[in-house]
């Protein structure tokens, strides 16, 4: 029983499968004949064509018939089966009306079966013929010779009556390189020409054009292909390296210029932007200050009457200006001075006040001087003594008219022409008592009366003057000596004052203009150990007048003037 059921089911399944197969194969009916398309190339005629489909027995001519209905009128058969070709029905202009609805039917020969129907208006089925007469002209070639532009032209299809305007066409050209597969479309335009830019030389190009009615969407077939080719121009390439050389050369020159500018920046800055000159005081050369020519500077400064230093009663002896003076000549006398000095040290501070900017040493503020000061003062003292000794010696040897009072110009024993800004204290000197005295006053001027105008001077000139005096030319060169900030001994000072004239009234020396006062000319006044300070100049120069005695008549203490005395003396 079960086996029978199985057998039956199997049989039924097989039958159903076979039936199914049979059904599936017959599901698809054979394709009926149908209209492929209808087309009007110029909106004056049109034609329709069909296909027989799967009905192979209907492919032959006359197997199928076409009927058309114009404006829902009667059905008429196709007027022309042959002109347009096989399976075509051609309607000439007499049968063609635009803007009129048409319907065509594909019927069997015996006209009882309608296989297919199509309705349209002729203006909708307008598909023009392709353009003809394609040609191209070269517009230009680029400077590099790599690219060129062309202008392509064509003619509208001859069938389309464009001139009368029955059809208005627009065109679309396309181009591509031969080996490429994609066509590049250009703009759709009404004109029968268009430019193509950027084509490459040495490559062959293909061009084709198609057209369509302006308002429709159906394009025509493509025209015949046009081939464009321009060979590469080799001559143009020679310009390439030349331009490259120019460019690289220019770049190189620019780089070199930049390097030069950066390396010579400072010099160029100075050249192009010169430094603004520093304001100068008229008449004063800053070089003077650098080289330490104080004598000239002093002379210049003295001309400015506004330059008046403050006079501090108490600090008159305190202020010093220390100058770096080369003591080359003084070194040689160290051996001599060593013997002289011995244990001599600074007794009174004011006697050994050295040129020191510290301002510490003063007569009224006894201060332990620095070791430097001490050494320096010692050295200077030694030098002084040495020079003085020499000068004294020389002075003693030299035959002078008058015995030089040793004390007269000891204050001015160290005489120099240049002026200093602060006074050296040389108030008490004698030829023998010049121990530890400071001889650094310069003779800036000598009055006719034989008064010596002392001003603070340099000590470096001591040796020079000492040596200068040793020469026999001394007397003749007295002018030169004094003006050259020479060190003049009292002897020489006397000589200077006495030699030029017997009266001794006229000083030949006119170095500095600031002779404060002039003592009356006189013969050699009595020598005293002290030379009074007659006047103190604005530049703190002391005018020592040998003839005058202290007015107050108070005995001068050895070595210094008390400030009260100074006050009395000073104007």
């Amino acid at each position, binding site marked *: 029983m079960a086996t029978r059921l199985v057998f039956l089911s199997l049989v039924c399944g097989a039958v159903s499968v076979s039936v199914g197969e049979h059904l599936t194969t017959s599901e698809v009916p054979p394709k009926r004949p149908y209209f492929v398309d209808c087309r009007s190339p110029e909106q004056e005629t049109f034609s329709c064509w069909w296909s027989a489909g799967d009905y192979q027995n209907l492919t032959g001519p006359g197997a199928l018939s076409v009927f058309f209905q114009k404006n829902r009128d009667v059905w008429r058969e196709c007027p022309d089966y042959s002109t347009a070709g096989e399976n075509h029905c051609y309607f000439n202009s007499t049968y063609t009306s635009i803007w009129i609805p048409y319907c065509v039917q594909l019927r069997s020969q015996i006209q009882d079966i309608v296989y297919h129907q199509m*309705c349209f208006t002729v203006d909708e089925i307008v598909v023009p013929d392709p353009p003809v007469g394609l040609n191209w002209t070269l517009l230009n070639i680029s400077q590099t010779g790599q690219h060129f532009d062309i202008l392509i032209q064509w003619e509208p299809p001859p069938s389309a009556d464009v001139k009368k305007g029955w059809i208005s066409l627009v065109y679309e050209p396309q181009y591509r390189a031969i080996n490429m597969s994609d066509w590049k479309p250009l703009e759709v335009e009404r004109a029968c020409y268009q430019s193509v830019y950027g084509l490459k030389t040495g490559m062959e190009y293909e061009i084709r054009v198609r057209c369509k009615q302006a308002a429709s969407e159906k394009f025509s077939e493509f025209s015949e292909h046009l081939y464009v080719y321009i060979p590469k121009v080799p001559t143009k390439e020679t310009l390439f390296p030349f331009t490259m050389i120019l460019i690289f050369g220019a770049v190189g020159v620019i780089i070199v210029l930049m390097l030069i500018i950066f390396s010579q920046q400072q010099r160029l800055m100075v050249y192009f932007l010169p430094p603004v000159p520093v304001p100068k005081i008229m008449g004063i050369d800053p070089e003077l200050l650098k080289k330490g020519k104080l004598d000239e500077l002093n002379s210049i400064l003295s001309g400015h009457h506004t330059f008046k230093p403050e006079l501090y009663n108490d600090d008159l002896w305190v202020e010093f200006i220390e100058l770096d003076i080369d003591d080359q000549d003084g070194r040689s006398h160290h051996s001599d001075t060593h013997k002289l000095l011995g244990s001599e040290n600074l007794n009174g501070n004011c006697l050994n006040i050295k040129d020191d900017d510290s301002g510490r040493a003063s007569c009224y503020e006894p201060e332990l001087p620095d070791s430097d000061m001490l050494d320096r003062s010692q050295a200077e003292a030694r030098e002084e003594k040495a020079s003085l000794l020499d000068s004294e010696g020389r002075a003693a040897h030299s035959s002078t008219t008058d015995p030089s009072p040793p004390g007269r110009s000891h204050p001015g024993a160290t005489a120099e022409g240049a002026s200093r800004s602060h006074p050296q204290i040389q108030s008490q000197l004698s030829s023998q008592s010049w121990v530890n005295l400071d001889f650094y006053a310069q003779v800036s001027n000598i009055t006719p009366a034989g008064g010596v105008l002392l001003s603070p001077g340099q000590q470096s000139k001591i040796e020079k003057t000492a040596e200068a005096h040793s020469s026999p030319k001394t007397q003749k060169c007295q002018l030169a000596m004094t003006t050259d900030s020479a060190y003049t001994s009292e002897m020489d000072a006397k000589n200077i004052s006495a030699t030029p004239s017997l009266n001794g009234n006229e000083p030949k020396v006119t170095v500095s203009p600031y002779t404060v006062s002039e003592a009356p000319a006189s013969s050699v006044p009595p020598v005293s150990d002290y030379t009074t300070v007659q006047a103190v100049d604005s530049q703190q120069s002391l005018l020592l007048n040998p003839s005058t005695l202290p007015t107050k008549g108070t005995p001068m203490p050895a070595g210094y003037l008390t400030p009260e005395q100074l006050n009395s003396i000073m104007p």
Partner: protein
Amino acid sequence: MGFDHFLFPVSVLFLVLVCLDLEYRVTSAPICAHGDAGCHLLSVSDLFDRVIQHSNRMHSLSSDLYSEFEKERFLPVRNQLGRATCKCHTSRILTPNGKENAQRTDREELTQVILRLLVSWMNPLLQFHQSVAHNEELSNFSSNKALELSDMVHELKNGVEKVAEKMQLLGIISNSLNGVFPAEASLSSSASNEASHMRDYELLHCFRRDSDKVQNYLKILKCKIVPEHGC
């Protein structure tokens, strides 16, 4: 701050002006600026050219609008019966239906036909634009195009009238046209009633056809009047 307030409306205005599709706008600009004496120098040929250009644009616009409506409505493929059987309200106007027929028609009649067509479409297009404007389903593009279309018809009608006047002035055509227009008015009113019953795309289909007619007739007319090679 004030400058910013001023800048925004200006930029908006600028964008609006740019985005407006000015391609189809043809405004009448005076050709001759030297007074009446100079205006006679304007040739009929130039007038025809302008009018033909205008009609070309109008036809393109109508085609675009029709294809857009066709897409939106998902109308069936062409060759359907439905499309071809729509009746236009201008069907009763007798028009030459071929090139030879048009060439055989005399100038006055051709001019008259053109004017009739244009006049009959003025009101329906206006109504069409109004219906499109109220329909929110349609895009603004369609609404603007519809408005442009109705404007264009007006302008084209004026242009063709001017050409007709010029031709009458020059004696190219007779003065028999003047009697036509009162009849046209009545025709248009009845036609517009019919047109209101049509659907949008049917109306556009009809108008597209008629604008094509106008375009071709104008060209034929120009070829007849202005002697050129090939005409």
